[in-house]
């Protein structure tokens, strides 16, 4: 009865809504509706993509990515991109490398300091000042210098809070240390909260000597090659440049060698940059109403590359899709976060623009883990190969892994689940990353080969007895459900004694199963993407998947780690020690092939994304390494002809 009443009304009103014509509303303001939220505006604190929407637009880095390119850069606060050719990258005979960045002169932050008659500094918006007032700006107060660059990098490292700030530490120490806590322990034998002044000074000095300032040039001194350096310097996280004087004035770290311990790993709200900023980016943070979940960015008229076309950007969190859709259709919203199943309908709607199939450097896979926790682990049933369970080291057998890989129907998943919008993953490195080759081997659905490997596994016992195991997936994840369901059915077709049971769990329970001391989940659907374009280094794609200390190894068990240690680590080390891309590429390509030979994981597909906007929105640049984060600077909004 309820449906009879509601559906005709919904249909009629829906038609009326979709037929509604909208004028260009708020012509200078981009209204961006999403389901995400920003964690903090402190670039040294954040590490996730939604948070980078803030820092990407309000701060600048020394370098910026060149449009969609993930390995090419353009100058930003640095006037030049360092290279061997221009002499700004210098290789030492001892294997050390230095990177020099000449800082753009007369670059002002959004707020600058004016000295009052009483000797106190007041911070005013640079845009609002007259020429006369600008002449009275206190030197260094809101004027970006090489010292600010050094302060920003040191602060990110010493704060030691986010994964991405730790990447700066890893870069500056050439991968020797993963974080400042490790440096402190190594140098002093003590943990950071317990360091005395001398020890704090000792740790500071260790990092301080790696960054030198000479005039307007800041130079990074790396003990060894770290090929991902330029990529990290362009990321909108810990390498975003902040104004030292303003940060100190707001109560942040004063830059002294013995005080940084007080600012070590703060809570989100404990940093003065949490909800305030003084960057040099094209937009300023005008308001962050955390209760209304609304962020308003205002154009910085004196941005170094000229003012943006948009006067304001409003980011609002709207969880309900229908509400987002209606606001898009009425023209009240310019950009929305649409569920994938509505793309075709939206693409056919007048006034709406869908840009689909945008590539991401993110691979989806089913990860094998071994050995598994043997006691109290319902996922492995009886814990024996008796048809009622699996042994804890089930996936240690290469034939089992290969059998599983041949049992997956990748084409079906690509065509019917991903609607032909992406390609099959060929291994850890995806399109655009060094080591990716179009002709590298991949698995296809081949029940006969799968049977061959299953028969060979465990001396035929597996085929004879069958197995029962449980795979976990996150609740509401339809892609995970599809990938595991297809596998489940194919396994049962190959041998009816193969029983893969599926269980959907909340994220918290998945974490519990995946990140236990010993993994309990034999087969887990997840996805990982590199944090910079270089496949090597601690945050590169190849390392993530194939290093014994990488991300995947972290939850895949000791057996997986041993496999990586024995076969993959030597090649990873060899490639990372080289500087010449021509020498490195074949090694990463070989690692990619080896991930197939050893069936390390079941690589499924490369992730993709899309955007849905009003047709008057133009200028979006999809940079894969920024995970599609919107740089609002090039965005324009004008009525279509």
């Amino acid at each position, binding site marked *: 009865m309820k449906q009879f009443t509601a559906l005709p009304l919904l249909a009629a009103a*829906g038609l009326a809504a979709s037929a509604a014509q909208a004028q260009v509303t708020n012509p200078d303001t981009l209204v961006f509706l999403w389901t995400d939220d920003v964690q903090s505006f402190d670039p040294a604190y954040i590490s996730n993509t939604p948070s980078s929407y803030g820092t990407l637009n309000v701060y600048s880095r020394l370098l910026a990515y060149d449009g969609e390119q993930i390995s090419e850069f353009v100058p930003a606060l640095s006037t030049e991109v360092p290279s061997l050719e221009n002499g700004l990258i210098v290789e030492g005979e001892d294997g050390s490398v230095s990177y020099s960045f000449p800082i753009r002169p007369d670059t002002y932050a959004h707020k600058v300091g004016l000295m009052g008659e009483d000797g106190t500094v007041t911070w005013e918006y640079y845009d609002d000042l007259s020429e006369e007032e600008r002449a009275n700006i206190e030197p260094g107060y809101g004027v970006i210098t090489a010292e600010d660059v050094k302060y920003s990098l040191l602060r990110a490292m010493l704060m030691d809070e986010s994964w991405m700030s730790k990447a700066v530490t890893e870069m500056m120490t050439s991968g020797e240390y993963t974080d400042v806590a490790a440096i402190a322990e190594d140098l002093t034998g003590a943990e950071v909260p317990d360091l005395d002044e001398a020890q704090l000074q000792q740790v500071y000095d260790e990092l301080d000597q790696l960054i030198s300032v000479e005039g307007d040039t800041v130079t990074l001194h790396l003990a060894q090659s770290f090929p991902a350096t330029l990529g990290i310097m362009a990321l909108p996280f810990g390498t975003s440049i902040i104004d030292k004087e303003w940060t100190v004035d707001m109560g942040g770290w004063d830059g002294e060698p013995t005080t940084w311990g007080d600012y070590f790993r703060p809570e989100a709200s404990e940093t003065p940059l949490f909800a305030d900023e003084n960057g040099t980016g094209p937009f300023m943070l005008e308001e962050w109403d955390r209760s209304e979940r609304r962020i308003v960015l205002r154009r910085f008229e004196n941005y170094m590359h000229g003012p943006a076309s948009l006067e304001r950007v409003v980011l609002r969190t709207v969880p309900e899709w229908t509400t987002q859709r*209606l606001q898009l259709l009425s023209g*009240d919203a310019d950009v929305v976060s649409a569920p994938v199943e509505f793309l075709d309908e939206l693409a056919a709607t007048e006034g709406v623009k869908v840009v689909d199939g945008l590539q991401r450097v993110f691979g989806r896979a089913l990860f094998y883990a071994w050995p598994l926790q043997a006691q109290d682990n319902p996922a492995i049933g009886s814990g024996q190969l008796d048809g009622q369970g699996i042994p804890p080291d089930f996936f240690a057998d290469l034939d089992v892994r290969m059998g599983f890989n041949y049992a997956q129907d990748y084409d079906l998943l690509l065509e019917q689940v991903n609607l032909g919008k992406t390609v099959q993953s060929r291994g850890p490195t995806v399109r655009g990353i060094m080591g990716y080759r179009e002709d590298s081997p991949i698995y296809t659905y081949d029940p006969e080969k799968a049977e061959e490997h299953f028969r060979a596994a465990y001396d035929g016992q597996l085929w004879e007895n069958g197995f029962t195991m449980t795979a976990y997936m*996150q609740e509401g994840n339809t892609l995970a459900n599809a990938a595991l369901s297809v596998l489940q059915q194919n396994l049962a077709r190959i041998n009816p004694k193969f029983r893969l049971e599926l269980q959907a769990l909340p994220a918290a329970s998945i974490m519990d199963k995946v990140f236990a001391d010993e993994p309990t989940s034999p087969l887990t659907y*997840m996805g990982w993407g590199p944090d910079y374009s270089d496949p090597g280094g601690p945050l590169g794609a190849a390392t993530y998947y194939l290093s014994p200390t990488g991300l995947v190894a972290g939850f895949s068990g000791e057996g997986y780690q041993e496999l990586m240690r024995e076969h993959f680590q030597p090649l990873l080390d060899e490639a990372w020690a080289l500087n010449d891309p021509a020498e490195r590429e074949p090694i990463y390509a070989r690692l990619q092939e080896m991930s197939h030979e050893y069936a390390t994981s079941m690589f499924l597909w490369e992730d993709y994304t899309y955007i849905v906007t009003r047709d008057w929105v133009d200028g979006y640049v999809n940079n894969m390494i920024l995970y599609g984060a919107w740089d609002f600077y090039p965005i324009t909004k004008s009525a279509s002809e």
Partner: protein
Amino acid sequence: MLTYILRRLLLLPVVLFALSLMIFSLQMLLTPTQRLAAYVSGPEALKGGAEQVADLIEKYGLNDPFLVQYGRWIGGVLQGNLGWSETARQPVADALISLFPATLELVLLAFTLSFLLSIALGTLAGVNLNRLPDHVIRLVTILGWSFPTYVFGLVMLLIFYGALDWFPPSRLSQWAMTEVRSAEFVRYTGLNTIDALLNGNLPVFWDALRHLILPVVTLTFVSIASLTRIMRTSMLETLRQDYVRTARAKGLPRRVVERRHARRNAMLPVVTMAGMELAAMMGGVVITETIFDYHGLGQFAADAAAALDFPAVLGFGLYFAVVLVVMNLLVDVIYPVLDPRVRLR
């Protein structure tokens, strides 16, 4: 009566303590790793793997004994610190305080409207038993009862915003938000309509009202169903009482008997229910707030629960307990006003 009120208010800390202990115990049934979900967005955010999990559990003291964790939390509460909400990106107390006016504004309007309508419709139906007005009112209330809020709200939105563009979602239009944010606009109460009037800004007042109409109508339609039916039943019962018959026998006009004698007494059960209804609404109207992009306490509580944001859940639990106690108290205080036979001791 004052003694009664004071006694009830003195019980409040005991209720809050018991409630906090109960909610805290419930969350402790989860493992430390599961409770860590409050601080990370999902498994894929844990790039440091098991080592990072261990570090974070240590950092947030999730492995500490129950009493230590509870003591830490309650110690903060006693100092006015309800903890940090990852969902709201601000202290829990700040989130509750800042979201309260939004919910209050919506609920006050919807509740007042639904209460008055329920009394009027229930009375009308009661005095016109089995006649046309009674049939129509019963039909409307059955519809209101059986229509899911989600569907009704969406239909309202599709018609009055999608098709007609009269009543948009959220709390204010873009231009009005800019105005409210400006230095000239003083925030007195956080209630947009009231603040706009106090600032003498009629365009903002109309805009705020325009945004309130659909959620208010939705809430009213859904909540009048139960109150109207209770009022109708109570009215029927009261009309059969001896004192009503006596009043009629005295020759009092029918309207006077119905309004002064019957209706006033028939309102007692409605007031009880209305108190609970208001308390429930003040706890947040999740679906209505979500559909109409109206950021209030309901959406906050739902998001916090979904994200296992325990400080927020605990803080919200305490807030809701206060609301319940206060509403119960209000109902008790109103009783003797409606029926002098009831005395509070």
